[in-house]
């Protein structure tokens, strides 16, 4: 307790990802953002380094680390390129983890090794046009017919769902009525890419995260074998909520990195940019902004470390993860706003990293549970 120093194994991973992010990722980030080009070569290299398999055991082709390793890697990548970071985040925490946590041995052996190696990517199909924060309002349906699930409906905003290396999307679908409650019975089903009746809509034109891959998906009688059911029938919704709980730690770490990246850029700029003969960082109007930015980063990091510590200890971490996601995403957005302000006109130019963080950070307050959903979870924990 009360020891927040990273041990050697965690620190060595941080050093590795920091070097990789600065030497390999950062030089091509601006171009990938401008061209909306998915960084296949970076994904391949991250796979070779073992980043896509961090929290997955070696039995399934993983690296044998833990979820905190993943979070630390995301913080380092988030400093320089949120598109790359979300590609890793979604690839692992949303793509591979549902299979790892809830899949059968056969499903795990079939799908996980390529995902853990970063050779393939998987999507997480929960959100629908009319079902975001209220994911239970899902309309996508799956019915059994001659030993196959027949899926009809559609999904919205699904990360990593349409790349050249996407192998599957795990989708939630209504599979009947729950006998106990009379409500919808929602199940999770593995839908391989290329299944007839499964179409991937063209990529969105997004404000930020422009080098990440996001699509709407349509299912028109898409048929998969009955064995593609993930876990138990009717548990799909609760599985996905569990995945989102741990995913919040990963997103919080990514957001902490973004907030740190904004701080680093702004501090460096404030030391070199001069007005009226002195560096602007000598003005308290600027230095106090930077001090507040540093505090936000510090708190965001403490929050995700604390949530990860509870998770690794096997304790309930749902509320801590909500705290971490809430303060992390706000730190990223607030720091992006302040960093662009410190950069002045240059901060409004797309070529600067702070401008990219300004566009990229907004989604952190929306994706994987909006700020309001985090507040709802925290309020519930207070008995409200």
């Amino acid at each position: 307790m009360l020891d927040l120093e990273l041990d050697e194994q965690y620190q060595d991973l941080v050093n590795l990802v920091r070097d990789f992010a600065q030497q390999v990722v950062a030089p091509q980030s601006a171009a990938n953002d401008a061209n909306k080009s998915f960084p296949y070569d970076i994904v391949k290299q991250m796979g070779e380094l073992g980043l896509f398999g961090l929290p997955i055991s070696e039995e399934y082709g993983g690296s044998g680390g833990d979820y905190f390793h993943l979070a630390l890697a995301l913080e380092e990548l988030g400093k320089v390129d949120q598109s790359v970071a979300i590609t890793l985040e979604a690839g692992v925490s949303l793509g591979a983890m549902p299979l790892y946590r809830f899949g059968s041995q056969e499903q795990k052996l079939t799908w996980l090794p390529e995902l853990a190696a970063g050779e393939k990517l998987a999507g997480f199909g929960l959100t629908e046009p009319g079902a975001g924060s209220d994911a239970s309002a899902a309309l996508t349906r799956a019915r059994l017919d001659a030993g196959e699930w027949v899926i009809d409906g559609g999904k919205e905003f699904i990360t990593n769902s349409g790349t050249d290396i996407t192998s599957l999307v795990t989708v939630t679908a209504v599979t009947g009525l729950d006998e106990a409650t009379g409500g919808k019975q929602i199940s999770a089903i593995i839908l391989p890419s290329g299944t007839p009746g499964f179409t991937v809509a063209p990529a969105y034109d997004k404000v930020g995260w422009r080098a990440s891959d996001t699509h709407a998906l349509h299912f028109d009688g898409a048929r998969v074998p009955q064995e593609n059911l993930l876990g138990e029938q009717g548990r799909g919704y609760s599985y996905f909520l569990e995945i989102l709980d741990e995913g919040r730690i990963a997103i919080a770490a990514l957001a902490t990195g973004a907030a740190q990246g904004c701080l680093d850029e702004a501090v460096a700029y404030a030391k070199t940019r001069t007005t009226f003969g002195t560096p602007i960082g000598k003005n308290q109007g600027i230095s106090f902004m930077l001090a507040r930015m540093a505090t936000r980063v510090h708190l965001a990091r403490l929050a995700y470390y604390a949530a990860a510590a509870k998770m690794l200890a096997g304790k309930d971490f749902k509320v801590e993860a909500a705290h971490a996601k809430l303060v992390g995403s706000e730190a990223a957005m607030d720091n992006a706003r302040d960093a662009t302000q410190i950069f002045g006109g240059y901060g409004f130019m797309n070529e600067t990293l702070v401008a990219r963080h300004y566009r990229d950070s907004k989604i952190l307050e929306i994706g994987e549970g909006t700020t309001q959903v985090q507040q709802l979870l925290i309020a519930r924990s207070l008995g409200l």
Partner: protein
Amino acid sequence: MKIAVLIKQVPDTEEGRHLTSDGRADRDASDRVIDEITERALEAALKQKDADKSVEITVVTMGPAAANEALRKALSMGADKAVHVQDDALAGSDALATARALAQALSGLQADLIVAGNESTDGRGGVVPAMIAELLNLPFLGPLGTLEVSGGIVRGSRADASGTTALRASTPAVISVAEAMGEARFPKFKGILAAKRKPVAVQGAAELGLGAADHAAGNLVLASAARPARTAGVKIIDEGQAAQELAAYLAAEKLI
């Protein structure tokens, strides 16, 4: 084949260079990093191991306790084991005393090839590899931009201002590598985990059979001073003669 690679931990030069009050490199003023040229030396050895799994790589460093970070990184990149020459009596060793200590450590390894960076970013003497070769009575090739080892012969090329020279020697030999040898690989996460299980032998001066005479400085530093701030450059205003003046300036500086 056994390869020994000399690794050095240096202050991160991205943060500028700093001297202590007694004129030594201030190692606490910057982050500590593994010297990039020694990473490239390790990369040259790892390429041999990629081609032949039986190659065994031992990384060797001399430095304070914190230098084990550099060894750990080298092990995570793929070296098999490490030797850490660490003794307060060796602190502040000059190039010759360093070479004596490293030569002692290396003599116990029976390496077919000893690989070093050609020049560290802190001391920048560039003499230790050749001194080690002399002390061990081995041939020295360097700085090499390419490396090939087969049949007991080490070959490489050395590029300088006058051209490229092809060199070869029989093993065992000492080589130093130039930047042209190519960038080092990143460690893999599994390499990081594996590094914890690889052996690191810590050896002090007495264990290496070094006496006071061995680590006495071979040269005497009378004074050292930080590099003066850069002075203003030469400005040439083009009034029709700028090209001639520019050419004359470059010629005077022996740049063309």
